[in-house]
């Protein structure tokens, strides 16, 4: 099952500079585990303790997966997943 995954600049060190890679899995969690087998280290940048990192946004097609089922969001063939680090900060 092929799912397109769009990779942000900051994580392209794990994908040989590729802007998009393919992966497979029935859920986001499985997809990130699958990516890890070819792009060692990438999973830990997205997932922490079995959950999505707070300041990494993951979108299934156009939807922020926090409004779906988070890391348990189900995927189907042909889906597109986009990873974007939050742009955030503050004075503290």
């Amino acid at each position, binding site marked *: 099952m092929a799912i397109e995954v769009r990779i942000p600049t900051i994580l392209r060190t794990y994908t040989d500079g590729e802007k998009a890679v393919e992966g497979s899995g029935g859920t986001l969690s499985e997809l990130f585990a699958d990516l890890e087998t070819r792009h060692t280290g990438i999973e830990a940048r997205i997932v922490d303790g079995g959950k999505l990192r707070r*300041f990494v*946004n993951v979108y299934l097609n156009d939807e922020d997966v926090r409004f779906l089922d988070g890391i348990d969001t189900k995927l189907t063939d042909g889906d597109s997943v986009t990873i974007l*680090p939050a742009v955030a*900060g503050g004075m503290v």
Partner: protein
Amino acid sequence: MLTITRALYDRIVEHARADHPDEACGVVAGPVGTGRPERFIPMLNAARSPTFYEFDSADLLKLYREMDDRDEEPVIIYHSHTATEAYPSRTDITYANEPGAHYVLVSTADTDGAGDFQFRSYTIVEGVVTEEDVKVVEEYA
């Protein structure tokens, strides 16, 4: 060094002033590889906070799609500090994920007499903050 037009500089400052006492944030995009800030894109601070900013997640996706379609990148990522100096905080450094960008910080602390107005620029690469000069020009050469 960050080279920026007077017009863009003024728009960043206006945005920071308008949103005070909340932090304002946004991007100035430019053609990939040129390092030239051109397209001013003010963003909504989803946190609506005087001490924190975060781009709204749906707006963030739209922004990056749009930049991708136009072969642009975020040349400047700006935000304001409303009561402290315009220097990257620990939070700013932790979440700085664009090593190629100029991180512009504006301090609007002068509004409440809490400090000086400041407009400063930095690169933040793997946790290392380097301040750089800001050159304001009428137009790019």
